[in-house]
């Protein structure tokens, strides 16, 4: 296991947007119409820089082997690279010990792991799990399944019309029977940044654990588990420059140690006989079967890339773009923006409607201009229900986006309006 002290330091680079964009060759791509790509679907998945792609290739060309400390050179190298990636992720989020980092497939698996390994072991019928109305389906469905299977009670902190959580309601919803509060740090549908502090304080006061869904926060702003004061943090590599197929669950070590394993198989055992098996220690206990070594190593490179930029600089860049976009889109006739109006309280995610045009049609026409946005329910149907819309159009930004690209979105929307020419 690589310790944090063994990791080389990452050198900080200035935030040079032209250099950053050169690291993402896909941004030079054209779509079928011949228009240059304007990628504004980052909340769904980010693009990957050449440094991360090179790391994948380097791993497979030079070091590829299965891990578990085989005695041969390749296996030793692959094991070291895998454990180094774990340590890089630990450092990135301020975890004290690399063993607190469990590699999963994605945020969804991370949350399901907690539902199986912790909640199914420790919760009794009548115990309460509190989530919110603005959660992604990944932080709703596992708890509904647990409720239906085990008879726990599932409660929701309601959303206010501006897309923020009703913090007053939260205080009375979190009670002495609450065992877990599981909340997103940022809504992927509306961009709302959730003020976790107040809710964490309330949860701690009643003795509940807190799981933070960091799928939209860890890629976009500084996140430090020491200051968060929570118990679990789940996030996905693919939204932060890493490949698909690698996700992370961070948990406090004693908590992870107290949990049951999730899946059974190779690598998560200490001993196996026909009669019974004993479990390996954390983190191996939760990583059954051959892990996704290659993509974990590439995640390490992604984390290095972000660390070199500095997450404070990343957040600052995105806040500036979001601020510009909020103002620029407000000027487009017929556009209405959902959620809080200021970039201070939201991440780089803007959900909007265009009068008289269905989101699908917006997305389709923008695509011919090269502008890639997402349309639909964004895996947050309760938010759609609360807003009383079937779907929204959503633009979302990342480290490489520019105000020019926001302009392309805005002028694209003006054309959409003209094209459909309807004012219902």
């Amino acid at each position, binding site marked *: 296991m690589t310790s944090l002290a063994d990791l080389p330091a990452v050198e900080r680079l200035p935030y040079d947007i032209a250099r950053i964009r050169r690291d993402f060759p896909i941004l030079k791509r054209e779509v*079928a*119409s*011949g*228009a240059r790509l304007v990628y504004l679907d980052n909340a769904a998945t980010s693009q990957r820089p050449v440094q991360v792609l090179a790391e994948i290739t380097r791993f497979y060309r030079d070091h590829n082997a299965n891990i578990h400390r085989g005695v041969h050179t390749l296996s030793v190298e692959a094991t070291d690279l895998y454990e180094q990636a774990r340590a890089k992720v630990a450092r990135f989020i301020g975890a004290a010990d690399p063993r607190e980092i469990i590699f999963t497939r994605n945020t969804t698996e991370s949350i399901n792991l907690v539902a199986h390994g912790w909640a199914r072991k420790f919760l009794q019928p009548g115990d309460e799990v509190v989530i919110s109305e603005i959660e992604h389906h990944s932080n709703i469905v596992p708890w509904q399944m647990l409720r239906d299977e085990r008879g726990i009670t599932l409660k929701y902190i309601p959303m206010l019309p501006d897309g923020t959580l009703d913090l007053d309601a939260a205080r009375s919803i979190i009670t002495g029977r609450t065992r877990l509060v599981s909340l997103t740090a940022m809504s992927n549908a509306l961009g709302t940044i959730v003020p976790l502090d107040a809710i964490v304080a309330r949860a701690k006061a009643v003795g509940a654990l807190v799981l933070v869904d960091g799928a939209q926060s860890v890629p976009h702003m500084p996140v430090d588990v020491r200051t968060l004061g929570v118990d679990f943090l789940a996030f996905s590599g693919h939204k932060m420059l890493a490949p698909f197929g690698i996700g992370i669950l961070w948990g406090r070590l004693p908590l992870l140690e107290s949990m049951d394993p999730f899946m059974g198989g190779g690598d998560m055992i200490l001993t196996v006989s026909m009669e019974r098996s004993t479990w390996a220690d954390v983190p191996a206990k939760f990583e059954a079967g051959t892990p996704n070594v290659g993509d974990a190593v590439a995640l390490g490179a992604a984390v290095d890339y972000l660390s070199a930029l500095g997450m404070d600089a990343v957040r600052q860049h995105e806040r500036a773009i979001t601020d510009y976009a909020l103002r620029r889109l407000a000027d487009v006739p017929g556009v209405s923006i959902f959620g809080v109006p200021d970039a201070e309280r939201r991440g780089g995610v803007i959900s909007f409607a265009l009068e008289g*045009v*269905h*989101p*699908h*049609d917006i997305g*389709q*026409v923008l695509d*011919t*201009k090269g502008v890639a946005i997402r*349309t*639909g*329910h964004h895996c947050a149907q309760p938010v*759609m229900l609360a807003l009383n*819309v*079937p*779907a929204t159009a959503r633009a979302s930004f990342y480290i490489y986006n520019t105000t020019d690209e926001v302009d392309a979105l805005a002028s694209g929307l003006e*054309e959409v309006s003209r*094209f*459909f*020419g*309807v004012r219902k």
Partner: protein
Amino acid sequence: MAEPGLMEDLYREIILDHYRQPRNHGTTIEPTCSADGANPLCGDQVRIDVALVDGVVEAISFSGQGCSISQASASMMTEYVKGRDAAAALRGVEAFQQMMLTGEAPDIEGFDDIAALAGVAKFPARVKCASLAWKTLAQAIAEGGGSVTTDDGSR
């Protein structure tokens, strides 16, 4: 539009016309059968009411919300089936689904306008929008009611 080829494949003038002025939309009829259709991924919803008299569609009406493709397709569908018998209506559904797979307009009476939707086949994300009203019609006529979705586990 800047890119005539692509956009016009999808948004033919006749489609926009049906979208802006949907036929048989929200009209009050006395239905003998009805069905609801949903496209959960997009949030599109449609309700189809049909008055079948002696096996012939005497009146039909649709309501609901959706994108231009789903609304235009519903509007065209109602025009096509009105006055046809149930068997012809179901043949229309069949022909429409086939058109969504092949991108080729079928050689079938009454499909002149509908053929404008053949271009949708090139846009897999939109095929479900175009098919919604037709699937719902089939449910109403063949099953006498109920509800359908266009989701089939595919991405």
